[in-house]
């Protein structure tokens, strides 16, 4: 259960007037529980909110939510807060068997907790109405909200991006008979896009090896344990001092096997998962990039349309047609739309610029912590191993001379 101190202030909760304190919103996702049976089974989580926000109920509220509720929240935010990097969600599980393993559930819980916390700490997202619904609404309301919006949001945000943009494939759509979509020609933005794409590849590779490393720890633990058992048996049939020596070694091996399994778990939760989270965050950014491309395209299309309309209007003016008034009316509407589209696009650009800074800072923190945990865990494991074996040396000496 991760409790992060809010950006604004301390964690003190005073039952007296909330307005005397800086505003805070603190959330945690805990207590996963299996619900339902068979194919319908799913995991539900307790979401605990502690806050002094004025439009929230009470200092503390607990609701029960499931994975699809989180997805709903993410999709709402993605739709309404274009330009902001929406925090990533853990993936749906593709392997049935794995879905209810304790490890998977814990990994998912941790990721969901991260997700909600990041939203709660984001200076804009934390004011979202959908967030409030998510954190406060009773289950019926939640279910209603969820089923209303499923139609539009079946696609993942990154899917939109896929349709409208290909940075990597230079196969010209013109060749294929399609018009190439209009793109920004901002060199710095180009650089950013390229960076994001390449970053995903690099991170994915690192994460892959991190996951393998977890597995290797488990395998080493397993083999060390088996080795210990076998050598204990050897000691049993040997007897005497040598037999005792074998037994001692075997016992130590088994003990270290346990340490290795423990470290494997720590590595998974505190190093591999943060890396995975990083990958997801980058993918989420790709979604935002897609939204920006959309907004830009809309702006351009509208600008085109407005130009054409203007030409049309001028023609009508000249001929003093009776359609002129309607045309002027449409023209004004279009101009308003055009301004709106421009505004939207510019908002996205502005937000993205802020977000990228925040993102880089955040990731340095996240990765720094992950590295620290990684190194700490490895050091702890290595020290444990060294101590265990070292303690055996005097015993071996004593036994060998007896």
């Amino acid at each position, binding site marked *: 259960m991760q409790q*992060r101190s809010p950006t604004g202030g301390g964690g003190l909760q005073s039952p007296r007037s909330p307005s005397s304190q800086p505003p805070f919103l603190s959330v945690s996702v805990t207590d996963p529980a299996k619900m339902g049976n068979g194919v319908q089974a799913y995991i539900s989580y307790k979401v605990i909110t502690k806050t002094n926000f004025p439009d929230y109920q009470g200092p503390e509220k607990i609701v029960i939510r499931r994975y699809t509720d989180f997805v709903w929240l993410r999709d709402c935010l993605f739709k309404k807060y274009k330009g902001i990097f929406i925090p990533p969600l853990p993936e749906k599980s593709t392997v049935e068997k794995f879905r209810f393993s304790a490890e998977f559930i814990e990994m998912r819980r941790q990721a969901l907790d991260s997700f909600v916390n990041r939203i709660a700490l984001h200076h804009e997202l934390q004011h979202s109405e959908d967030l409030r619904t998510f954190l406060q609404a009773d289950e019926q309301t939640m279910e209603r909200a969820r089923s209303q919006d499923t139609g539009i949001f079946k696609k993942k945000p990154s899917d939109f991006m896929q349709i409208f943009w290909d940075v990597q494939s230079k196969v010209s759509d013109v060749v294929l008979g399609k018009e190439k979509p209009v793109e920004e020609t901002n060199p710095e933005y180009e*650089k*950013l896009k390229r*960076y994001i794409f*390449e970053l995903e590849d*690099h991170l994915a590779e*690192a994460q892959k*090896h*991190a996951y*393998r*490393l977890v597995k*290797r720890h488990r*395998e*080493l633990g397993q*083999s*060390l344990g*088996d*080795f210990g*058992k*076998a050598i204990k*048996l*050897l000691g*049993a*049939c*040997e007897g005497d*001092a*040598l037999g005792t*020596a*074998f037994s001692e*070694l075997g016992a130590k091996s088994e003990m270290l096997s346990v340490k290795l399994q423990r470290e494997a778990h720590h590595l998974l939760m505190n190093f591999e998962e943060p890396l995975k989270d990083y990958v997801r965050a980058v993918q989420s950014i790709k979604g935002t990039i897609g939204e920006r491309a959309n907004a830009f395209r809309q702006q351009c299309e509208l600008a085109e349309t407005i130009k054409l309309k203007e030409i049309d209007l001028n023609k009508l003016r000249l001929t003093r047609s009776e359609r002129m008034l309607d045309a002027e009316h449409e023209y004004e509407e279009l101009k308003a739309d055009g301004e709106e589209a421009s505004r939207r696009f510019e908002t996205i650009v502005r937000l993205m610029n802020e977000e*990228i*800074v925040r993102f*880089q*800072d955040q*990731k*340095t*923190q996240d*990765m*720094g*912590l992950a*590295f*620290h*945990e*990684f*190194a*700490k865990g*490895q*050091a702890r494991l*290595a*020290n444990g*191993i*060294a101590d265990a*074996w*070292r303690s*055996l*040396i005097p015993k*071996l*000496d004593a*036994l*060998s001379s007896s």
Partner: protein
Amino acid sequence: MMGSESQGFEEAQLYASREEMESLVLDDDDIKNNNNDNSSSSRFNGGANGDGGQHHHPLSSSLPFAEIPTTDDDDPLLSSPSPHKSPNAFNSFLEPPSYADAVFRSFDGDHGKQINGHGAVSTSSPSSSSDYLKISVTDPQKDQDLKNSLVPGGNTFVTYLITTWTNLPEFNGTEFSVRRRFKDVVTLSDRLSDSYRGFFIPLRPDKSVVEGQVMQKQEFVEQRRMALEKYLRKLAAHPVIRRSEELRVFLQVQGKLPLVKTTDVASRMLDGAVKLPKQLFGESVVSAAVDPNDVSQPAKGGRDLLRIFKELRQSVTNDWGETKPAVVEEDKEFLEKKKKLQDFEQELSNVSQQAETLVKAQQDIGETLGQLGLAFVKLTKFESEEAMFNSQKVRAADMKNVATSAVKASRLYRELNAQTVRHLDKLHEYLGVMLAVNNAYADRSNALLTVQTLLSELSNLNSRIEKLEAAASKIFGGDRSRVRKIEELKETMKVTDEAKNCAVREYERIKENNKSELDRLDKERHDDFFGMLKGFVVNQAGYAEKMASVWETVANETSGYAKSL
């Protein structure tokens, strides 16, 4: 404290053979240059650190990362292959002592004899003080057997240069070489088996070494060379066999190996085996009796057909007959010991298997750490080159730290594993010893069988004599033919009795050899396994300490992130 070595020293000592590792040149200068060039980033406040990060490490404090020299692609004919080429590395190679050994020598004191893989053979026998007999096998060369080849270029074989250094008196000289082929080794091995029944004679390498994969000729020759060297060194380590004439001749006598191969039927015939046809017929005449000299040899295929048949008949009688044979294995202590060793062998085999799995797991984790490190190295480079913000540079620096440490740890695992293999190889070795022990037990039971067979013959002869005498006494005036027959039988009995006495002596001798060898085995097993255990443990502890120190540095340098929680 282990962590106090100078960084450069450590880098220089670690050796790598993976291609990616070889191409790894991570230099501080790369990062530094990027910093200086990147003037476009407005957030970068000069200085390698950027604006006060909570962690103090500037980019320049990252450890220098020297370019890793590649190991030369060795000529497989001449030297040991690089480790970890094949999954069977477990039981096939000895590595030169690495840096790690030097550090651990203070722990490893009495373990010194096992460390050196090149040249030296341990002076293992308790009695010898400064005797030495060192053997090396090198320089495989093709040769041709010109005499027997019908086809030009046919009948090629490989010879090996066998060099010996010794101060044992029976060798005339302290350093000498001969060339031998594998067939010679087979001969040596067979002769030793004949002469040293009851001893735990090391097993010679297999005739065909096919490890389940198609092997190049060069690889095969190299494997054989190593196997031969190992074999000869084991012979030289055996307190009795190292003094044998057979070994001496093998090591010293130039030219064709003068050891006679186990004689076959043809040779025996040439030796005056007029006996042979009569043996086949089995009608006993004096000449059909077993030659006393032969009983000190086991019955061999190709000759002694009759003897083999008789002994086989005897063993069936032993197993299925109603009367117990006159002499049986009674030595309780021996039987107990035998059972105990059987159990030991079984458990040992199990441990050996688990040890292989353990070694594989150690290898894997080292590899994955290395790959993880490399992935982070690439990421680091990427982030530094593409950096638009200072936070990226900071992250790149942290990452580089982790990356280099992961690569270091990976190499430590590799070294650790090489040592682990060496130590746990003892297990594998003793499985071979157990085979030799079983051979020695077989010698013993074969000798016993010979005794039993001869005793049966004797009693058989005796009853025939008695029958004849009874029959002859009934005839008035004597029965010339019968009397002659009785005389013949009595002669045969005398010879057979002599043979039996020989056989009994041989059996007792073998029993003695078994006993002394078992005592030796106990002592050596005790020493060897304690050495193995201690070596293994010291090894694990030492490398774990080194790894701990590597990671502690990183943990300290990133501790700022933890505090911010």
